């Protein structure tokens, strides 16, 4: 008997030459398995349901739509050929919702479409992820570059302040922000060329700008020449350029992170997410770590000190940067860090191995847990005076009373 085999996400269906449905095998409703099979099918491997169906109906000749499947089907001992949009697939695809309900794959049309929606989403995400593989290494390099730029900005800014202070020492104290300081130097140069309008353009507040103008008038700094100013300006221009690169790199990290690690990004944002990847080495490495390790990533020094000397381990590593941790009272931080690390472990594994997006759900659960911690442990734990004292003495004797335990990097 010659049959037409139609393959679809909901299963495999056999039609005879009159276009009548002979038999069928339905897919499981496990999204992961279905999508695996669909992606394998592109390489020519028949769907598992097809193999099962062919064994079940014991036919000698099948007609499929995917030419690449023919060698695999011949291995099963059937004569195979291909014909696109054959009689079977025509009947099937014209009446997909009807077939799905009649074969009891689903109980309603709506259910079918919500299944198909999930499958195509998952299928597309999976393919997207393999296209985006190794992009995590790019995000890691970018975040490291940002850290280097931060260091450089600090270094250069310190030098600029020392240098420009020969001419206008008062400005150092008045303007703490490096970017604003560099902008002022680059824009005006000489202290007596600083104008109220110019400062306004940089959106300096009134109070500060009066102070600066006032200080410029009465400055005790030395007079310098055009040549001197030009050299100083070269440095401040460089600092401003670095700020520009930094903000562009931040945008870049954000876009790459959303692509390679959407769930991690949803939880902790692109910057902190990229830092975690950077410390772990890659997305896959991070995905293989237990939550307890993720919790203290970036606090290796404190952790190994604690292990060596038997002190208390750190409560958090870089995840300390997560707002809910550093803005919470001390006694809540460890618990929040543990909850966050657990969610991060889940997120990392999904990002690395499946690519589905459940960031919203993770976030919601985490928010709920944080809320719970906040209400349950609103008060600091009662101190146990004697134990506290004993511990402190112990620690002092062990560390020579010098080192102070730190939870963060």
């Amino acid at each position, binding site marked *: 008997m010659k049959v037409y085999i139609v393959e679809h996400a909901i299963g495999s269906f056999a039609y005879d030459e009159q276009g009548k449905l002979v038999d069928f095998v339905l897919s499981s409703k496990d999204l992961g398995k279905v999508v695996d099979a669909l992606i394998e099918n592109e390489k020519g491997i028949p769907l598992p349901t097809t193999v099962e169906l062919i064994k079940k109906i014991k036919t000698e000749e099948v007609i499929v739509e995917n030419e690449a499947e023919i060698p695999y089907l011949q291995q099963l001992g059937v004569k195979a050929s291909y014909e696109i949009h054959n009689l079977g697939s025509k009947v099937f695809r014209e009446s997909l919702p009807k077939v799905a309900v009649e074969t009891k794959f689903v109980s309603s049309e709506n259910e079918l479409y919500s299944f198909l929606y999930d499958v195509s*989403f998952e299928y597309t995400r999976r393919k997207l992820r393999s*296209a985006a593989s190794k992009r995590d290494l790019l995000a890691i390099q970018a975040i490291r570059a940002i850290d280097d730029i931060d260091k450089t900005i600090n270094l250069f800014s310190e030098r600029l302040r020392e240098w420009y202070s020969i001419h206008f020492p008062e400005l150092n104290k008045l303007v703490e922000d490096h970017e604003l300081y560099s902008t002022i130097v680059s824009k005006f140069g000489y202290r007596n060329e600083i104008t109220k309008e110019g400062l306004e353009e940089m959106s300096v507040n009134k109070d500060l700008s009066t102070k600066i103008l006032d200080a410029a008038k009465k400055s005790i700094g030395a007079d310098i020449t055009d040549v001197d100013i030009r050299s100083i300006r070269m440095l401040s221009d460089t600092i401003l350029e670095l700020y520009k690169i930094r903000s562009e790199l931040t945008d870049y990290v954000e876009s790459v992170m959303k*692509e390679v690690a959407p769930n991690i990004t949803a939880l902790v944002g692109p910057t902190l997410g990229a830092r975690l990847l950077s410390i772990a080495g890659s997305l896959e490495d991070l995905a293989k770590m237990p939550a307890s390790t993720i919790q203290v990533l970036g606090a290796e020094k404190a952790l190994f000190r604690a292990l060596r000397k038997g002190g208390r381990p750190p409560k958090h590593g870089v995840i300390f940067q997560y707002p809910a941790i550093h803005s919470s009272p001390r006694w809540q931080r460890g618990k929040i860090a543990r909850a966050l690390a657990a969610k991060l472990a889940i997120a990392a594994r999904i990002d690395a191995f499946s690519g589905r997006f459940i960031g919203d759900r993770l976030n919601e659960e985490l928010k709920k847990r944080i809320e719970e911690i906040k209400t349950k442990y609103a008060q600091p734990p009662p101190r146990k005076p004697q134990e506290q004292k004993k511990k402190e003495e112990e620690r002092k004797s062990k560390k020579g009373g010098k080192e102070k335990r730190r939870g963060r990097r």
Partner: protein
Amino acid sequence: MSELVKISKTQFENVYQCEFNDGTTRLCTKNLAPGFSVYGERLFKVEGIEYREWNAFRSKLGGAILKGLKQNPIVKGTKVLYLGAASGTTPSHISDIVELEGKVYGVEFSPRVVREFLLVAQHRPNLFPILADARFPQYYRTLVEDVDVLYVDIAQPDETDIAIYNARFFLKENGYMLLAIKARSIDVTKEPTEIYEMEVNKLKEANFDVLQVVQLDPYDKDHAMVLSKYKGK
């Protein structure tokens, strides 16, 4: 920013026209995902219903409607296979028009833009994102069904052949095809009108009734939208 004065129906189902106080009018559709703007278009709320402005410069179907498309085969409940969904600008409006009863299968090949397309599809249960190559319909046959309308906008030299191949797979008898031809990506050396004629002939040979060719300038230069009806295999 100009303000909305009036929203009225057009001759096409679920396509609306909004008038502004500066005298301009624009197309819009009812937002299926209220609160979400897909490509930065404006949203208006009128009597509890949210409308999205449809920018004809960003969407060839929008341009074709304004340039006098006689018939829009996409109505409420239509099933559409959309080849070249890109970041989902036009698919989102089609998804608005067909409403939840209709389905839009969006095929797009470039991972870069699919990323954005996914974000659009996330809020639209009738929009199915498929990352695949429209040249190989056998790869996504497992995810779609036969459709009433095939919408093709893929800017490839062999676009028409790909469209016909897909029609053989998935387009119902008497179904419609909307083919957006970008003359410049078929052959830069030929005159656009010459190319439209060439492609129209290809369609006729493949058993299509060509109903209308709409040139899309000024919305898209050297582009045309071809509306045709499939007479079956």
